[in-house]
């Protein structure tokens, strides 16, 4: 088992290097540079100042030299300093934001899992029922609706019209003065909409997968055998069928990590949540190369780790994989 893990971890390294190399190149191919945005069309800024900035950032060196410099620093986990005028270490900026994004993603992942499995199982076992049809419609609407649009509608409805939930941010003003439970409640209120929206969108796909894989499993011979043994229907479904049906779901959960991080960019920007998605978005707009690369590396690592965890979980759940 240990050997398997080591192999997997080692295989991640060239993959990661490849990812950083490609992103580094595409990032520099994109029009605009960090110096432009501060200096373009600005009469107060002299050209000398622009050259000085270019030199300061090391942007005058050839691309491969820039990459090598960046890469050697990465080996000692130094992501450099941000190009934005705050010039803070990238690692500090990310560390400040990462917990928020991870907690939101974990909460919505858990929500997705606990809601989509029952929905999927129920739709599969009661195929063609009203519930199945209704959930199909709901799921397709959820899948097709653009997240930012749903978010804005929810904000208008819950935030402005009903005035139940705060519209944006992570905390209210005066959060520090609240009691412990008051703080928790404050977070909960602020996170309700973003978490719900991101999980409803995730729910759509996941419940479909569960339904499909459940349907497939139900047709298998061993289910017929289980029924023939005279087991109760619930035992057939929940202990025999569901276990097997959940196998592919584990993989899909692992694979959905990158799309969740991608989604974070959208809802963190709309809901003004100070997470990594918003940081990445701002860095991208400001061509803040070190921060873009930092966010990319961290999210690639997270994705790769997510995949690894999914594989491990798969191996734990399925003895056949372990033997291979």
């Amino acid at each position, binding site marked *: 088992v240990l050997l398997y893990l080591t192999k997997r971890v080692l295989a991640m390294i060239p993959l990661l290097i490849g990812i950083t190399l490609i992103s580094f190149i595409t990032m520099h191919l*994109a*029009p*605009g540079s960090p110096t*432009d*945005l*501060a*200096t*373009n*069309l*600005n*009469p*107060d*800024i*002299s*050209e000398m*100042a622009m050259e*000085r*900035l270019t030199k*300061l950032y090391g942007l005058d060196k050839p691309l491969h030299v820039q990459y090598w410099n960046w890469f050697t620093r990465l080996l000692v986990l130094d992501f450099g300093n941000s190009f*934005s*005028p*705050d*010039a803070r270490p990238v690692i500090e*900026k990310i560390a*400040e*934001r990462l917990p928020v994004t991870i907690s939101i993603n974990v909460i919505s992942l858990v929500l997705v899992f606990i809601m989509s499995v029952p929905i999927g199982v129920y739709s599969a076992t009661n195929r063609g029922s009203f519930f199945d049809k209704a959930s199909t419609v709901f799921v397709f609407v959820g899948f097709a609706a653009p997240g930012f649009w749903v978010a*804005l509608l929810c*904000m*208008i409805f819950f*935030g*402005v019209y009903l*005035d139940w939930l*705060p*519209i*944006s*941010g*992570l*905390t209210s*003003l*005066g959060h520090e*003065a609240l009691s412990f439970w008051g703080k928790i409640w404050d977070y909960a209120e602020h996170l309700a909409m973003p978490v719900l929206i991101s999980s409803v969108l995730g729910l759509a796909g996941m419940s479909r997968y569960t339904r499909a894989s459940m349907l497939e499993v139900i047709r298998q011979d061993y289910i017929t055998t289980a029924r023939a043994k005279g087991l109760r229907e619930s035992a057939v479904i929940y202990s025999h069928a569901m276990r097997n049906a959940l196998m592919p779901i584990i993989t899909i959960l692992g694979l959905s990590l990158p799309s969740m991080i991608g989604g974070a960019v959208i809802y963190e*920007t*709309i*809901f*003004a949540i*100070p997470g990594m998605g*918003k*940081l990445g*978005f*701002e860095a991208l707009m*400001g*061509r803040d190369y070190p921060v873009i690369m930092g966010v990319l590396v961290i999210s690639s690592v997270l994705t790769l780790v997510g995949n690894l965890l999914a594989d491990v979980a798969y191996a734990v759940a399925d003895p056949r994989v372990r033997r291979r």
Partner: protein
Amino acid sequence: MNTGKRQRYNLMKQPSLLLILAAALVLAAATASAQDGPVTGGRIVYGSLSDPAGLIPMVTSDSASTDVQTFIYSGLIDLDKNLNFKGDLAESWTISEDGLTIAFKLRKGVKWHDGKPYTSKDAMFSYKFMVDPNTPTPYAGNYKKIIKAEAPDDYTFIVHYKEPFARALLTWSLSQLPSHLLKLGEDPRKSPLYRNPIGTGPYRFKNWDPGSTLELTANPDYWEGRPNIDSVVFKVIPDLATQFLELKSGGIDQMGLTPIQYSRQTNDAKFTNSFRKYKYLASAYTYLGYNLKEPLFKDPQVRRALTHAIDKEEIVKGVQLGLGSPATGPYKPGTIWYNPKVPRFPYDPELAQKILAGLGWEDHDGDGWLDKDGKRFEFTIITNQGNTQRANAGVIIQHRLAKIGIKVELRIYEWTAFLEYFINPGKFQATILGWNIIPDPDLFNVWHSSLARPGGLNFISYKNPELDKLLEQGQNVLDPAKRKVIYDKAQVILANDQPYTWLYYPYALPVVHSRFMGIKPAPAGISYNFNRWWVPKDQQRYQLTP
């Protein structure tokens, strides 16, 4: 003077409320004066599109930072509600006959937020800070023109220039920095003051939660007296739609509206009861600029004909929903620099057609488009993505020009690509863009022929030796009356040549929660007297906790 990261001075996408300078009042909302006079207390919440980069002025250039810095720091001089100079940390100043020396008499008894007195040492330091090669500031140019600065005693500060510099006084609105807390030669961005500033302004820094909120608190020792409102909060909300919803639900107290929000989405009783809307001309204009390297636009008669063919009123109506006014030149009506007596080319499509026919542009082949020597009159207008007003203006222009037989194509590009591939190298035919109008009339950077080069702001390559001479003169004359003569002439030249078709001046459309009293709109906008705004006791939502 700063307005916006990638859209400073110029291509503003939305006016920064705190910085709207120079504005002619159109609508004065009568403030319901509560019985009792101004009281202290209360809190105002602003929405900010991004987290400030840092809080040491002149090192940053983003609007979020500038918005916060305005509350914390003060300069030697400031602009009053009519955009005239007034003393701030300088009580008074004298300019020598030859215009080469300015002597500031500094105010006594001003204290830094940490209690230390403000003296000429700090003024000297602020100057040295700007010209120090280690200071990462893009604004050093203005201060490098000084040949000698001296501080003979604690309350006198004198600067000498090599040659007269017209904008000199304005550059002394420079935020003053504490000499006892900063050191020359060190990167100011590494200083603790960068994230925990000490200034002399009306508000003190209190707390900064990166990426979400920043809070300031009233400075009881402010030289002009303690501001009424206890607390100023900036909430980072990167999305404009979200900001608007936050405003509606009471999460923020002030923002600038878009024309559509102003005229269509804020008329329900709930909104009009809790907010007051203002409108006045913003310090900006939108224009259609012709690339004069194109043979098509070489002849000023053609450009005048194009202006005749474009209905500016229609653009104001269609694009700004009437919330703007047709533009004729680079200055704002109602300011002293504006010359109302320039040649105008009003909407008159027949005249436009006649002028063009006189130049040989007629529909010879009968395909509906004008042509000359077998070449059709067609060109492409480009503008940047993310600014619907500009795109819509383009569509209206396209329609009007088609009516007189000119084929126009409209293309919209992402901002950085737009600048890098088209504007900076001068590879375009015509473009719709906007400039901010600054309090000083200097037009050198946009119109002088020396800046008609790749990356220069005169990207339409306008070259007129007569105008060049005026602009050079204008930079060296300090007397406003003499400058007025120069720039009046410059406006006539520009109007005659029509290198741009000036389209419109948009309105600034700020909205403020109605619990704030004491707002008196003036040419400078509404924020100039912010320190005197107040909230009646029963409507205060915030108590200052010791």
